[in-house]
């Protein structure tokens, strides 16, 4: 069944001069959808043409509506020669296909050219009339909502979580087609942009179909990636979590009444056996299990054995490097045991039907997450080969399926049925490709996976909204609720439930040290917990968290094909191990015991591998206090050596003490033994690091003999270890007033103000061609990251106190000797005064931070640097370093300024000029005194905020308008003239942001949440003065309103049990 797409071209502005003679342009527009093209009249001799065209109507299949973008080309009419293209606009129609999203696209959109960048703007109107399609064999999936957000979107409640959806489409890369040799770079770029746009449309449609088959209506945590495999093709793949979402009417308070039905849950649970996920019925998915044999990668067999997995304690496949933990004796809380087993059975049955019990969500409704096992990850090295038949991409499918299977089995080994916070990535260099996947093994509440739980009606209301960090009132309400629910499972308070081990303590998948939960004292918890998810809202944290990064460089020999792949896969385990050790050391150094949002990235280059692990460290109150770090010398005979060790030990102890103060970590109990415990076992000779333990009976009231606490031992037996310790200690401290984390919000900070600042910074570092050692490389890489962070702090100094949230690092080795680091983060300011008072009381931060007009940050926003690093540095041999940082200036100082607008304008502008001269003549001419000052030009441009977070502090999202997923290529043949690499990247990123904002505004939105820059591929040819960059950005376009605007609903009222329907609910 078709739909009707209508487009109207209204006007253009700021067009470039196309006719040198007249300094004007004769512009007209081509509107193309599928194979149909319409043209407007030529609007002669104007840079601001008014076309006011008729409605161009396209009658098309809804399948095409989903796949194809609307393509608008602006051209300059030329009587004698061919018309010159000014630029193009691609409009994704998808948001118009869902009745709940946008209804019209209308506004000024930048006209983009891949060589010249933005060249003016065009005002368009686009609408879709869609006819209902009831055909059960249809190929379209209109109406399925997509969200990049990895939590349940804020104005929806989740009725059902169906599970994992994935799809992958491949095609030939136009850049590598034979025709590319004869066409212009522009044509080639445009072909690529169009193809990727088509492919993502197709991908979304196919995923939507799967969701419909499963009975869902939305995809949450939608993650789409491109693999530019070069010669072998172009892969666009996506994963997500299929859900059934119900829209909340604006009035319904999310947390009304929940206590009634919760206790019926255990009774209804067994029925879950019968209600399998619908996905089971759709076994004809292309990912049937049998594909394994079709592998044609020659290295597959070699590296599959090398593929490693690591769970929380990094153990499985590297036997020599195992952490020695204590096996634990003692008994589990007896009463909880059988229930746990019961739960496990239920969950299992609900999940086992699924091919992959995998969820891309990182943030969950309370009660969803029962236990967390630890991080599971898998990497696999593959050799790329040409994709012969794009319609049957079974090779790539099989690769990923294999990886997911492995993830699944790792999770099983941890006693978990599901994997949450799951993500996939690739790193490609020539024909070698590393596929990586990681997630967190977890046990989930089966309730959300069953059909029919909708009947419980009210009880699910609370799931609809994630506790807002700023909305403590509701958070509390939810906390209570989940506690009552969890009550049936074990008696533990809700805040620690997720930290309890899901696996059987007598049959542990890896050696770990277990203690009784410090919160409930009933269940066992591990000594450290690594996860890829956000900190659950109900979790109790002592003090604040901080960003912890492990960085690593490893050189490798240049090689080809199989040899190369083998050497890479041989290196991988060692890199993972070392990253893990670094993380562990840094965690201990900060006296913390858990990592959230862990993301380990390993990038492959021709002659090196880069590893970057980022996570947010916290002190979970439920977990035992971490032991200190002990340094042990190998040869204790030497006196000076001992002295050296003891000074080092002292430095470490000092740092730990300082960090405790800094992060405000003062656990209520067990202060008596933190650091300085003697090293009990020096003879043990594991290679470098080990943890050992020492017993103390501080849990005596529970009469347990094994309340163990380990002191982490660093044994210095070679220079490597010294280096490691040095680097551990030289990690630059964060300047006062700053906090940073890579999770959505900083654990321990609650009172956010609405001041926020999103920015993206890309730094390209050129190594000199000298032969570098691993250590030299490590140092360069570490300095690069540290300096990047430092310059961010420096730039943001006017926002203090502030927290850099969602710090997302992406590293790549685009070419030999180039390291590229891209950072996206959002700086959010918070209230200092209330912070201190509210650390416990959790009062809501209300005061807007009005003290500053922060336009320094704003204006220096899109900013780039190209600096020559001082060559005096002893170890580094840098030739040049380019920095690009670019910022979106959507931050809220707009709001702050608005009130002051008048005073500012009248005040400061007037005061510039000094002498008010009094005219001796009577004021004969009033006209020249008439002030014509007005705000620059006409209707103000809609302010669109962008944030990588799923929310904006102090605001409420009232509508999701659809997903924004844009891909741009920019190329230049005059790199130097455009300000070098930095100037080029700078303006490109600024343009990308401008286009994203314009599209959000055209959909009627005022913000883009869950923004991410998924791809930023930069290639340079300095000799030819050329460069090319590809950027892919995505996010959710939303409409938000300020919380203060809807203060009509007193927050206290809603958080109470009063069923707030209708009456006070209209906003």
């Amino acid at each position, binding site marked *: 069944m078709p739909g009707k797409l209508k487009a109207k071209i209204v006007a253009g*502005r700021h067009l470039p001069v196309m006719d040198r003679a007249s300094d004007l342009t004769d512009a007209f527009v081509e509107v193309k959808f599928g194979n149909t093209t319409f043209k407007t009249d030529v609007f002669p001799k104007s840079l601001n043409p008014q076309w006011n065209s008729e409605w161009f109507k396209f009658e098309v299949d809804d399948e095409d509506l989903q796949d194809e973008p609307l393509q608008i080309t602006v051209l300059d009419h030329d009587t004698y020669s061919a018309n010159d293209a000014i630029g193009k606009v691609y409009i994704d129609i998808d948001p118009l296909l869902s009745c709940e999203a946008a209804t019209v696209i209308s506004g000024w959109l930048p006209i983009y050219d891949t060589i010249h960048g933005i060249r003016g703007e065009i005002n368009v109107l686009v609408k879709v009339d869609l006819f209902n399609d009831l055909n059960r064999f249809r190929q379209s999936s209109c109406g399925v909502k997509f969200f990049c957000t990895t939590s349940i979107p804020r104005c929806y409640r989740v009725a059902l979580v169906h599970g994992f959806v994935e799809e992958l489409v491949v095609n030939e890369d136009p850049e590598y087609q034979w025709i590319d040799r004869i066409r212009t770079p522009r044509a080639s770029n445009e072909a690529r942009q169009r193809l990727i746009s088509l492919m993502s449309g197709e991908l979304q449609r196919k995923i939507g179909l799967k969701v419909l088959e499963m009975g869902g209506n939305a995809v949450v945590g939608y993650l789409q990636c491109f693999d530019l495999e070069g010669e072998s093709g172009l892969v666009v793949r996506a994963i997500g979590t299929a859900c059934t979402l119900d829209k909340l009417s604006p009035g319904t308070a999310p947390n009304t009444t929940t206590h009634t039905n919760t206790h019926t849950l255990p009774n209804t649970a067994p029925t879950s056996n019968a209600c399998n996920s619908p996905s089971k019925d759709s076994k004809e998915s292309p990912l049937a299990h049998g594909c394994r044999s079709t592998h044609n990668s020659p290295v597959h067999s070699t590296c599959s054995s090398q593929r490693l997995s690591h769970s929380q304690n990094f153990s499985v496949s590297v036997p020599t490097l195992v952490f020695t933990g204590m096996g634990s004796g003692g008994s589990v809380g007896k009463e909880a045991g059988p229930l746990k087993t019961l739960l496990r059975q239920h969950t299992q049955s609900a999940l086992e039907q699924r091919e992959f019990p995998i969820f891309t969500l990182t943030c969950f409704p309370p009660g969803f997450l029962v236990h967390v096992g630890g991080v599971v990850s898998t990497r696999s090295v593959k050799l790329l080969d040409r994709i012969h038949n794009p319609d049957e991409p079974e090779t790539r499918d099989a690769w990923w399926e294999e990886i997911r299977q492995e993830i699944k089995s790792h999770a099983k080994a941890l006693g978990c049925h599901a994997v949450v916070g799951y993500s996939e990535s690739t790193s490609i260099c020539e024909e070698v490709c590393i596929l990586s996947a990681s997630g967190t093994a977890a046990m989930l509440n089966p309730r959300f996976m069953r059909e029919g739980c909708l009947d419980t009606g009210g009880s699910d209301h609370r799931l609809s909204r994630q506790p807002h960090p700023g909305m403590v009132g509701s958070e509390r309400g939810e906390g209570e609720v989940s506690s009552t629910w969890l009550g049936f499972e074990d008696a533990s308070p809700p805040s620690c439930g997720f930290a309890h081990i899901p696996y059987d303590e007598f049959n542990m998948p890896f050696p770990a040290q277990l203690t009784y939960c410090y919160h409930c004292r009933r269940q066992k918890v591990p000594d450290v917990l690594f996860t890829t998810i956000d900190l659950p809202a109900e979790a109790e944290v002592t003090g604040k968290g901080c960003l912890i990064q492990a960085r690593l460089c490893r050189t490798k020999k240049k090689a080809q094909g199989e040899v190369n792949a083998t050497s890479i896969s041989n290196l991988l385990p060692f890199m993972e191990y070392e990253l893990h050790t670094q993380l562990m050391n840094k965690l201990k150094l900060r006296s913390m015991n858990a990592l959230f949002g862990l993301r380990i990235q390993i990038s492959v280059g021709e002659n090196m591998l880069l590893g970057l692990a980022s996570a947010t460290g916290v002190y979970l109150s439920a977990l035992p206090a971490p032991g200190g770090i002990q340094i042990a010398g190998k040869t204790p005979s030497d006196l000076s050596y001992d002295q050296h060790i003891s000074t080092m030990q002292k430095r470490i102890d000092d740092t730990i003490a300082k960090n405790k103060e800094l992060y405000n970590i003062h656990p209520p109990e067990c202060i008596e033994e933190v650091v300085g415990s003697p090293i009990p076992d020096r003879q043990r000779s594991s290679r470098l690091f080990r943890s050992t333990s020492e017993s103390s009976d501080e849990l005596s009231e529970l009469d347990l003999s094994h309340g163990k606490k380990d002191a982490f031992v660093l044994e210095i037996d070679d220079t490597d270890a010294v280096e490691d310790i040095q680097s551990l200690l030289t990690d630059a401290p964060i300047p006062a007033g700053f906090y940073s984390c890579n999770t959505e919000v900083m654990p321990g900070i609650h009172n956010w103000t609405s001041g926020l600042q999103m920015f993206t910074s890309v730094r390209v570092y050129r190594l000199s061609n000298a032969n570098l050692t691993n250590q030299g490389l490590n140092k360069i890489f570490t300095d690069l990251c540290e300096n990047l962070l430092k310059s961010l702090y420096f730039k943001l100094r006017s926002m203090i106190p502030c927290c850099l949230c969602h710090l997302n690092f992406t590293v790549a080795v685009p070419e030999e000797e180039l390291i590229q680091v891209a950072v996206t983060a959002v700086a959010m300011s918070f209230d200092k005064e209330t912070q201190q008072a509210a650390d416990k009381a959790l009062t809501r931060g209300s005061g807007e931070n009005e003290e500053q007009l922060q336009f*320094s940050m704003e204006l220096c926003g*899109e900013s780039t640097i190209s600096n020559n690093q001082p060559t005096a540095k002893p170890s580094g041999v840098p030739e040049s370093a380019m920095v690009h940082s670019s910022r979106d200036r959507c931050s809220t100082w707009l709001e702050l300024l608005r009130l002051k*607008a008048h005073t500012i304008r009248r005040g400061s502008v007037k005061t510039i000029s000094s*002498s008010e001269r009094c005219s001796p003549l009577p004021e004969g001419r009033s006209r020249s005194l008439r002030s014509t*000052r007005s705000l620059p030009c*006409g209707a103000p441009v809609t302010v669109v905020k962008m944030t990588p977070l799923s929310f904006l502090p102090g605001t409420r999202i009232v509508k999701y308008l659809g997903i924004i997923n844009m891909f741009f290529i920019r190329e230049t043949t005059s790199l130097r003239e455009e300000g070098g690499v930095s100037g080029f990247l700078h303006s490109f990123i600024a343009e990308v942001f401008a286009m994203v904002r314009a599209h959000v505004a055209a959909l009627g939105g005022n913000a883009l949440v869950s923004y991410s820059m998924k791809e930023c591929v930069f290639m340079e040819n300095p000799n030819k003065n050329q460069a090319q960059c590809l950027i892919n950005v995505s996010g959710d376009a939303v409409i938000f309103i300020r919380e203060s605007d809807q203060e009509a609903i007193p927050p206290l009222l809603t958080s109470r049990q009063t069923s707030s329907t209708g009456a006070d609910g209209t906003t």
Partner: protein
Amino acid sequence: MPCYWWRDHGTWCSVLPAFCQPVSDAVKVRMDEGALLECEANPEVLTSDTMDQFRTFQMCERLLHSPTKLGSQLLYQIPAQNQIILIERYYEFDSVFAREVLGKKLSKGTKKDLDDISCKTGITLKSCRRQFDNFKRVFKVVEELKGPLVENIQRHFLLSDTLARDYAAIVFFANSRFETGKRKLQYLSFQDFAFCAGQLISYWTIGAMDSMMEDMDVDLEKEFLNELKDLKVLVNDKDMMDQHKILVCAALRGKIKVYKLMEVNFKNLSRALINLASKLTHTKDVRDLFIDLVEKFIEPCRYDRWTVAEITLFLTHYTNAAHCLGTFRHQMIWDRYMGVIKSCILQMYHE
């Protein structure tokens, strides 16, 4: 111009002229100002941050060339208030510099002389170029436009009233090419000239009388200049001149110290002002308006040590007395002429 922009990071744009120096200098200045003490910065960070600022500025600069676009462009989300400040700061200029180019043709030739001006004024060459280009840009845009000059400038460049008036003066001077460079005029500041320009624009152009705003403000009204010839009767008609003198002397007797000298010089002074008026039909003489005022009127008075108050009194009564001359019929022209001349002289009469 000192580089305040980093010290007070709230006002990046307040010191755009800071961008008129090499990055390395800027970094050095920032270091001297103690930027390194903030936020654990190191020289590398500082350099890169400075480069950032420069690059951002460079990208913004393109938009600042046509300020009306700044409001509708999508590349930068700059709030309206900041846009206004940004524009204002970018178009701000040093009066010392403006004084140097005042009345000169805003052409490439003058641009070549910027080195000298830079040396003379101590303003960096980059800054001189920016200011000069701003003058030229504004001039080019409003030169051919109809309607009031100040309003045109405001409409196209979104400048504040005061700044727009200053630009109007510069445009006006550049268009009429008034002589300002003579040694005798060196004591006059830009503000003096800007004031005079304001007076000329307000009262001597076509737009000044005709509020229909249909003609341009840039040129003096030809018809008016022609009519100024009629004022010659005041010196040519001996009776009228004597009577004029009697009236003025009667009014001033005992009120000014320089009465004696005034009485002696009255005819010379009067003749100087009237001749000036009658000559204004020639473009060349229009250009020499200010030098003539100084040579023919201000210098003699200064020689005789007139005070400003005395000149004010004299000119007031000199103007008013003409109304009492029964045979003088050009009152309108007279007032229009003397009003401007009087305020110009008063503005220019200082050391």
